[in-house]
């Protein structure tokens, strides 16, 4: 009677050990898979965050460079405007000095002929030449000043366009701010083995033990 009982217990024990081992294995695998998925997800988020920080920093540097470029463009424009103005002023100044000189020459020529006692047609012709030349010089000066004014206007307009172009080119680099992409979805956890499966396995092992006992125990005749 002890041999069937002992073998039944051994048979059931082997089955129970197998069920528990399989349960432990499945549980450990599920735990490891879940831990791995969680760890991967956290690192993905960390890498994504670091990438985004670098993007934001890069865009910040671009904005800083954009501001500096605008300042430099503005200062360069001011220098160009001032240069054009100085050039125009110089021409006006030169014209003023020429005007003064022409007036002096006009007076000097007229008074010189009179002082030399020149009269008549010769004196009149000389005087007309001086006055005519003075008039032509006046016309030349007027035309030159008008041309200088037009050139100044063109230069100022050109400078303005250059500033705009340079500012537009600088703006191209910061026109579009970076945007974060879609975050990776969180992982789906793997369910572990059910306790019901373990209980069923243990019950099955117990039934196997009882069957072993019945197989090894003699059944009385007719009983």
């Amino acid at each position, binding site marked *: *009677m*002890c*041999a*069937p009982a002992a*073998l039944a217990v*051994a*048979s059931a*024990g*082997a*089955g129970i*050990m*197998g069920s*528990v*081992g399989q349960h*432990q*294995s*499945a*549980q*450990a695998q599920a735990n*490891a*898979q879940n831990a*791995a998925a969680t*760890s991967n997800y956290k690192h993905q988020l960390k890498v994504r965050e670091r*990438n985004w920080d*670098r993007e934001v920093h890069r865009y910040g*540097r*671009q904005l800083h*460079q954009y501001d500096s*470029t605008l300042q*430099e463009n503005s*200062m*360069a424009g001011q220098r*160009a405007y*001032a*240069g054009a103005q100085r*050039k125009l*002023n*110089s*021409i006006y100044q*030169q*014209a003023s000095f*020429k005007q003064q000189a*022409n007036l002096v020459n006009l007076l000097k*020529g007229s008074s010189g002929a009179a002082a030399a006692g020149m009269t008549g047609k010769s004196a009149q012709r000389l005087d007309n030449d001086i006055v005519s*030349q*003075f008039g032509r010089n006046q016309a030349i*000066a007027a035309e*030159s000043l008008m041309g200088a004014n037009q050139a100044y206007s063109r*230069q100022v307009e*050109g400078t303005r366009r*250059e*500033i705009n172009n*340079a500012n537009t080119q600088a703006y191209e680099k910061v026109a579009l701010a970076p945007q974060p992409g879609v975050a990776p979805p969180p992982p789906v956890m793997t369910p572990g083995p059910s306790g019901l499966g373990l209980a069923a396995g243990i019950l099955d092992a117990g039934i196997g033990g009882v069957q*072993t006992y019945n*197989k*090894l125990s*003699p*059944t*009385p*005749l007719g009983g």
Partner: protein
Amino acid sequence: MEQDQLQTYEQGEGFKPNAVANVIPALDRINARLNSADQEALAQVRRNNQTRVENSKSAGQDLIALSKMSKTLTDALIERQEGINEDERLEGSLAGQEAAMAGTLDLTKYNEGMAKAKQVDNVVQDIGAELLSKDPNNYEAVSQLTGKTTWRSKGFREGYYGTIMTRYNSEVDSMVVPTDYPDSASFSQARAVARKAFFKKHGLHNASS
């Protein structure tokens, strides 16, 4: 008077902005290197986690292997025990057949012997249980001692009763002849009486004990 020519040596200054330091290419190179390092680190983390998952598969395998080994061992022991039981049963069956065929079986003593055997068997079981409780290593010895009695008795009864039953028809027919009875009811009654007599003669009334 000379003709005037207005010209200036002032050339002015065109639009010449100062260069602004552009650190973006250098920053891109640094970011590319950092991104690459991040991706390598992430790949390594994934490999490590995969290794952990692979390692986890070995959890519980020791119990599973132990279970397989125990099952193999248990199956072998069961097979061996079944062989022993079968041998004992056949041995008992042979003895039972011989006793039945020889007709030398003293049923009174047999029944007494069976009752005594049961008592002995119970005593043996008690002794075996006590031996086992004191030392589990006595299992084999206890198994041999306690199992043999029961399986041999079972075989003996099978052999004896099986052999006796082959004589049933001839003996009962010789005791009850149909022509001696006027109707089937009286014949059936007589045959029932003869059947009881046959069972009592050969001790079959104790078959279930």
